[in-house]
């Protein structure tokens, strides 16, 4: 059951430093079910560090992360994943020797409590096979089920990445630059997929492509030097003078 607009993932006043470098400086944001929340900012603004802290692969120096209102600050990445938090990686982090189908089956299995973990062959398990096939078809790569991940094209890997994240029916999806390296058509297709997903979950989207961000996002948070300088609906953010100065103008320049 998902309630629209209910906060599902919250960051409260997160701080993280690496030596003298302040990577996250008082970050607070709320991801709600049914919303796409975009996190944007110039290179080095601390977006990836923020994702890592939300996902649990990096522990904040101070502050809290809440999942459905409960603190998960001290929970590791695997524990958060089991609660229903899924992420995609900036660099397509796949299992190179596994086929697309096997990769997604492995993702489905992660959410299960298996009775025959040590004995029954996993490849013959219909309860893994069916949801995995389904996820591949949803993303339009069903025909690639038997292809090894290392043999997939870049765009196909991105889609497989998404399929693995979705297979576990997450409640929050953290997407770290899902469009990086995609062509025009692929970007449009993936945008449609992401847009369709938000009905059932909250989505945090880190993305460089501003067209994508302003087309998809319900809320945009702008990060500069680890701190939030603005947060609100895309229409407001687009015209925010601080944002234009700090970020959008720079983006045009590069």
């Amino acid at each position: 059951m998902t309630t629209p607009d209910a906060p599902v993932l919250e960051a409260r006043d997160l701080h993280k430093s690496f030596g003298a470098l302040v990577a996250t400086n008082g970050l607070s944001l709320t991801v709600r079910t049914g919303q796409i929340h975009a996190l944007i900012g110039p290179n080095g603004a601390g977006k990836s560090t923020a994702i890592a802290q939300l996902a649990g692969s990096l522990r904040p120096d101070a502050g809290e992360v809440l999942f459905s209102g409960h603190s998960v600050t001290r929970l590791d990445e695997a524990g958060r994943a089991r609660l229903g938090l899924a992420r995609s990686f900036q660099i397509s982090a796949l299992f190179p020797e596994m086929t697309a189908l096997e990769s997604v089956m492995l993702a489905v299995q992660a959410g299960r409590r298996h009775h025959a973990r040590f004995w029954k062959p996993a490849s013959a398990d219909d309860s893994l096979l069916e949801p995995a096939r389904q996820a591949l078809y949803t993303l339009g790569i069903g025909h690639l089920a038997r292809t090894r991940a290392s043999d997939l094209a870049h765009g196909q890997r991105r889609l497989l990445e998404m399929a693995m994240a979705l297979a576990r029916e997450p409640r929050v999806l953290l997407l770290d630059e899902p469009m990086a390296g995609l062509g025009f058509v692929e970007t449009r297709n993936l945008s449609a997929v992401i847009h369709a997903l938000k009905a059932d979950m909250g989505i945090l989207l880190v993305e460089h492509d501003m067209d994508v961000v302003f087309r998809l996002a319900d809320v945009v948070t702008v990060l500069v030097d680890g701190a939030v300088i603005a947060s609100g609906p895309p229409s407001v953010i687009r015209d925010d003078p601080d944002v234009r100065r700090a970020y959008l103008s720079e983006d045009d320049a590069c």
Partner: protein
Amino acid sequence: MRPDALTLRRRLIRDGLPMLLLAVAPLAAMAVDAGWLVPVFTRMAVFALAAMALHFILSIGGMVSLGHAAFFAIGGYVVGIGSQHAYDETPAPLGLPGWNDMLISLPAAFAVGALIAVPFGWLSLRTRGAYFIMITLALAQMIFYLLVSLRAYGGEDGISMWWGRNTLAGLEMSDRLALHAVCLVILALAWWVLSRMTAAPFGWVLDGARQNEARMRALGYRPLAYQIGAFALSGGIVAVAGALMANVDEFVSPGLGHWTVSGELLVIVILGGLGSLSGAVWGALVLLGLEEVLMEFTQHWAVIMGPLLVVIVLFARGGVGGFLDRLNMGKRHDDA
């Protein structure tokens, strides 16, 4: 682990043939009055068993252990120590009575090996890559020195079981063929168990963690427990192999745990190829067979064996398994 496109015939050659050889060779040796050769084949079966356990964690788990000799020796000493006390009728460690039957000594070897493998695995898995190799090597050396310091059990000289082998369910095992059969059955059993586990979710998790550990955590897995579990299973099986070795030789010494044994096990795994568990059997046949043959020509066989190994590593990766695949496919098989 891949959906196997192998035909039955190929699988029979790859997996069945080496087992068949190990089963038939001793009988053939007896038939031509060369009974002294039987222990040579039994040795192959025992090393195949140990190497298969290493193969399991290496090929799907990515754990390059250069310390499995420790578990080999531990298994040997479980037999040696129990047997010595059973003969002396003195109490064994922990006040236990001595033991001299394989129904006790083999499971005990497995348990002790697996138990010691847990902390060893945990420590080694703090790291990866070259560190993992060095740490497993160092921990095994610690066991080696520990065994040397056990004066009650012969120190450097070890224990000569001149009173004879373990019994099996009360039956004498003085017949070489009977002991060979036991080793072969256990090898087949280990193969069956390890194949099942490779294909089971357990094996998938290990395989996934080898390929991309960060991804596994993001999916909700905690691979460390699986890895330590696999390492312990592997250590336990190698200890069983060591226990069998003690029965073949009727002798145990710290030499079972010498680091070169760890090296040999790795060589066997790679010689046989990483593609399937049966590679361990091929590897044992080839390496120990080669040693026997070279020894016929010179006592300094290692002068030939060493460079041969270097050449194999540099120019013939993929081992016997890769070679068979290439023969069968008529083109180069990608082992990457």
